[in-house]
């Protein structure tokens, strides 16, 4: 979907003439009140569910689809790729409309975007689809921040917010991890201050290391131990041979092999400038800041929205304590909120996995939402008589 009117960004800059790619699943009902927006996290896209033409399953396919917890036979589900990303919406790899750029890609000149900027962009797309009020907005991690930001920016345009494995802002430790990832990219000799496209190269080494450090923080200590332990490549290849290859440069432990594989895979499809932008958007998110750090004051405007907050006990990147801060702010405002703290072993990644307790609560919550919508007198008849 193309937008000719500029998007004004938190930085003061504006995004001119941009495109957002999106997918929808299910059918928008006559009353146009069964739409649920799914917000994506760092490396995901608008392809939420089902199979792409290339045969790739959507990133939240275990949650979204016919008969799944977010049931697309009852809801109209929307996935949008955020501006600044690298999966089809306007981003650093898109042509810079500034005449001085002479048709070159934005590269490092793509404006810095925030969670709130994304929500503004999504809101325009939702309005274009003829939806005045979303039944719900759902997201995990950075997507959860967008879901929360919806209730703060457009509280009258969203009924329910489902925020999974997220936080009201990043801790210093979280920002530190992001900074290590950014420095890995920015110090890659192929980075060229973000204009690697003009040089015909990709800072793959930086991207690999960025993904490796990120990946470590998405897993729990226990899940890594269970999966890899101290298993070595040498022992796995020849149990009777020497235990180690005695090398400092090559892969010795299986966990190294796994991280390198993840890094390699990521560097093939993800854009380096996008990684910098998205980690920065994470860093900036802090709705309490303009209220002197008072999160309860920040959520006062959202008190009529209804919330489901979910965290995972072994998630140390967005720990349950951070979700409880959100719950407390909502309780202080007497907002309707339920909170599930799922005892899952998988760390931050748990929000993308299928856990019966987690999906059970999600299914129950969405089912109540669907029942509520279906119990309403349909606006279809009103529409018929109004015209």
């Amino acid at each position, binding site marked *: 979907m193309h937008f000719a009117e500029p998007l004004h960004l938190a930085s003061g800059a504006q995004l001119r003439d941009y495109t957002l790619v999106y997918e929808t699943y299910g059918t928008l009902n006559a009353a146009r009140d069964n739409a649920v927006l799914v917000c994506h996290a760092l490396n995901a896209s608008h392809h939420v569910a089902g199979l792409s033409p290339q045969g790739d399953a959507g990133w939240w396919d275990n949650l979204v689809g016919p008969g799944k917890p977010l049931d697309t036979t009852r809801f109209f589900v929307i996935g949008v790729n955020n501006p600044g990303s690298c999966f089809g919406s306007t981003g650093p790899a898109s042509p810079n409309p500034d005449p001085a750029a002479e048709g070159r890609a934005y590269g490092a000149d793509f404006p810095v975007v925030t969670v709130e900027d994304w929500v503004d962009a999504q809101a325009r797309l939702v309005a274009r689809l003829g939806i005045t009020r979303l039944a719900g907005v759902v997201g995990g991690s950075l997507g959860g921040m967008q879901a929360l930001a919806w209730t703060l920016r457009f509280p009258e345009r969203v009924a329910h917010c489902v925020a999974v494995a997220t936080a009201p802002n990043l801790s210093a430790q979280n920002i530190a991890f992001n900074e290590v990832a950014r420095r890995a990219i920015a110090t890659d000799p192929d980075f060229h201050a973000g204009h690697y496209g003009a040089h015909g190269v990709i800072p793959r080494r930086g991207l690999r290391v960025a993904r490796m450090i990120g990946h470590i923080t998405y897993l729990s200590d226990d899940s890594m131990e269970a999966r890899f332990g101290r298993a070595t490549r040498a022992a796995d290849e020849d149990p009777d041979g020497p235990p180690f290859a005695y090398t400092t440069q090559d892969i010795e432990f299986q966990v190294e092999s796994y991280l390198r594989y993840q890094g390699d895979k990521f560097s093939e499809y993800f854009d380096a400038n996008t990684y910098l932008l998205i980690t920065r958007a994470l860093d900036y998110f802090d709705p309490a800041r303009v209220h002197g750090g008072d999160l309860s004051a920040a959520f006062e405007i959202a008190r009529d929205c209804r919330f*489901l907050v979910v965290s995972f006990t072994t998630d140390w990147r967005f720990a349950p304590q951070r979700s409880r801060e959100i*719950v407390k702010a909502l*309780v202080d405002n*007497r907002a309707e*909120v*339920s909170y*599930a703290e799922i005892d899952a072993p998988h760390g931050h990644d748990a929000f993308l996995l299928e856990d019966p307790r987690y999906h*059970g*609560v999600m299914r*129950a919550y969405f089912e109540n939402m669907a029942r509520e919508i279906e119990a309403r007198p349909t606006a279809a008849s009103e529409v018929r008589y109004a015209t």
Partner: protein
Amino acid sequence: MSERADLEIIASLVPQGARVLDLGCGNGELLAHLREHRGCTGYGIELADEGVLASTRRGVNVIQLNLEEGLALFDDRSFDVVLQLDTLQHLRNTERMLRETARVGRIGIVSFPNFAHWPNRVSVALGRMPVTRTLPYEWYDTPNIRVGTHADFEVLARKNGLHILESFGLQKGRVVRHLPNLRASMAVFKFERT
């Protein structure tokens, strides 16, 4: 039917339209009842996954939390009524929890198994720990780590500066006001902070 009757008796202690916090809300049945019949709002607190799921299914606001960690989530007197039904006996720090209940709510309503109910007394007199409908566990597998009596609670309430507004026993779905410490398997107290 006595469980349903107990629920309705407890619900009748809650004022119309009250803002309620139900500590150990289980499957959310009472909160749903209070919402539908008495126009109440509020939250349930539940630790068990199955309780959180059942409450969510009912559309009751439920917050998954371990009560042993206290009620830091809630400000002083932020609820009209704090309910703590059949829960107190499972908590290690009973007294602190009682104080927290009184801090967060204007009114507290507590129920727990009365160990001084006469069949329990008979059982102990005969040398064995009681196993009854209200106390269905053997001494070695009971989750009831704090067993007390109707009379004991009066002492604890007084010690913590709580003013008892109403107290009675529950036996087979009936209110017992005469000699509840002897004649009722459950004790019920409604109190406020003095």
